[in-house]
């Protein structure tokens, strides 16, 4: 293939219920940087039905051009109609790069297209850059986040990757930005539509996944008892966090295993992790040390938890936490 035929940075502008999702705006921000580095354009692919105003919003977040496919088949996402639409756009417009949000939709659509187009797809990238050879350098965590790997897709185009929501920064919205909106017709092969959505249910999940929490209030042996743990729950409710625990609390039956952090529990990477009364056994550290910011409170100033904490307080959790909650709820 002639790589030079492929130009411009495309973003799959994922919409749900007719609203373009934040992750698409984040990708437009990153695409803007990549396109500027290449001297190319940012193009949003917007699929759906009755998408008033959404194309303009893509422009305001950095798109130079928006390709809109407006069809009833695309109102609610299913794999095949979306794959046919994006595939026809890739065939027609030959993008150099296509970015998708690493959402349940992007991670369903991206690989389907990579196989259809016969090109590579790199999942869950945390950094995207242009190399001196003008290739896309895609960096992602590997081995459960223990290692980072930079991936290239040298000889195939487009270069495709998915990026998790919240990883890239949205550019400030610029209502004065101008761009081009082009409506694209797609001839669907409906004989291949074999998935039917019967029902869509929105719910706040009963079984919360602590790995998705932005802030975790985690308790350990130093919390002591069920009563001690209620202080943690109060703090969590006050700041909209989730509670989790070390194994000791789970073994003691104070909290469910689904909320255990550590080697035999879950590996978490919240923005903020409170380690309260947790000594920091290696098994626990393995599950939380990648958290962006760690605040630890423990009586024992030699507790290993302090070696990974960004802020450490030597003291009694059961005294400090209720005080903190009281201050915060004011």
């Amino acid at each position, binding site marked *: 293939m002639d790589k030079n035929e492929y130009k411009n940075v495309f973003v799959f502008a994922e919409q749900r219920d007719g609203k373009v999702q934040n992750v698409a705006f984040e990708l437009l921000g990153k695409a803007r940087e990549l396109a500027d580095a290449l001297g190319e354009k940012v193009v949003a692919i917007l699929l759906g039905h009755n998408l008033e105003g959404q194309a303009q919003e893509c422009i305001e977040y950095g798109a130079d051009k928006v390709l809109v496919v407006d069809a009833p088949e695309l109102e609610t996402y299913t794999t095949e109609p979306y794959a046919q639409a994006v595939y026809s756009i890739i065939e027609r417009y030959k993008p150099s790069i296509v970015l998708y949000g690493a959402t349940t939709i992007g991670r369903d659509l991206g690989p389907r297209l990579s196989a259809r187009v016969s090109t590579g797809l790199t999942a869950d990238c945390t950094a995207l850059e242009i190399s001196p050879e003008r290739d896309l350098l895609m960096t992602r965590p590997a081995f459960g986040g223990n290692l980072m790997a930079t991936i290239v897709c040298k000889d195939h185009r487009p270069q495709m990757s998915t990026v998790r929501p919240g990883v890239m920064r949205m550019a400030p919205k610029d209502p004065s930005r101008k761009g081009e909106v082009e409506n694209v017709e797609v001839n669907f092969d409906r004989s291949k539509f074999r998935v039917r959505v019967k029902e869509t249910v929105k719910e706040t999940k009963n079984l919360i996944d602590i790995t998705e929490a932005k802030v975790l209030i985690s308790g350990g042996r130093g919390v002591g008892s069920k009563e001690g743990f209620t202080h943690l729950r109060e703090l969590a409710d006050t700041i909209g966090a989730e509670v989790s625990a070390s194994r000791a609390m789970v073994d003691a*039956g104070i909290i469910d295993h689904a909320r255990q952090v550590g080697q035999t529990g879950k590996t978490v990477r919240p923005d903020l992790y409170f380690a309260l009364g947790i000594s920091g*056994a290696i098994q626990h550290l393995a599950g939380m040390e990648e958290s962006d910011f760690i605040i630890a409170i423990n009586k*024992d100033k*030699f507790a290993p938890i302090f070696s990974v904490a960004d802020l450490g307080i030597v003291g009694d959790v059961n005294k400090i936490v209720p005080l903190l909650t009281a201050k915060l709820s004011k």
Partner: protein
Amino acid sequence: MNFNLTPTDELFLQMIREFAEKEVKPLAAEIDETERFPEETVKKMAKLGLMGIPVPVEYGGAGGNNILYTMAVEELSRVCATTGVILSAHTSLCIAPIMENGTQAQKEKYLPRLASGEWLGAFGLTEPNAGTDASAQQTTAVLEGDHYVLNGSKIFITNAGHANVYIIMAMTDKSKGTKGISAFIVEKDFPGFSVGKKEKKMGIRGSATCELIMENCIVPAENLLGQEGKGFAIAMKTLDGGRIGIASQALGIAQGAMDETVKYLKERKQFGKALAKFQNMQFQLADLETRIAASRLLVRKAAFRKDCKVPYSADAAMAKLFAAETAMEMTTKAVQYHGGYGYTREYPVERMMRDAKITEIYEGTSEVQRMVIAANLFK
């Protein structure tokens, strides 16, 4: 000679460890605290075929061997000694004597139900006046036409009240001493059979230990296990096998206490360093670890010999003696190393120490094991 586990053993260990960790461990403290028999765990074990590990497939068992069975009891006891003994009494003391001595009809009637876990098994030998001297049986059985009539009582019966089938020893001819003892397969619904008071115990508190009462209990003649007068021999051979189960239980308790201790000593700091860094601690644990490893070799060797159908009586006695005393020492030290915490119910080592003690007592005390070992030495 080969000390390696087979791939099948490895696969079995993977399963039983996960099962013990996820299904058994979470209940251990609660059933100890409330003295509750864990029916739900028995049901789960039944579903996986754990209640009939060494039973041939034709009788509805898993077609496994005694090595797998010892691993099961060890791994269950590592997290909950109560669960370990439920399986041990069921398999070694009820299934094994039927498998080894039963008629075709008895095997066909009882083994599928026991192996599937639909029925739970137990064993009755000990009486108020016949403990270590099991020959002093006072329960009697008199043949009347097509059935025996049993009278007497048994005490300290594991699984009692929850079991459907009991292997019961009774005198059919007092004049012949031990040669007058016979074994019977008694179902819980036989007329005249009842379960008496439940013991309040120091350890293995989730396991049901009760008295059995037989008042003119009617047992069909075809439920005589083996021949008349062979009961004592059957009982002694059954206990030989049972000791492998209890040795596995003791081994599991010791290993569980070691696991907890290692975890604790790595975490617990005094004088600015982890307790695990103190050499005195390391030396003491090295000795205990060696004893646990030696126990495991003895347990597996006894099980291996049983599988090979070569004499294993002394091997089983040595395994039980050594594993039980190791369990007692390991758990006592584990409590000590945990300090004040170890004495509280917040940590499992306190329970493990209470559980360990019984392994030096039941299915033959440590003294009885020494008698068996010495008798084999001087025969």
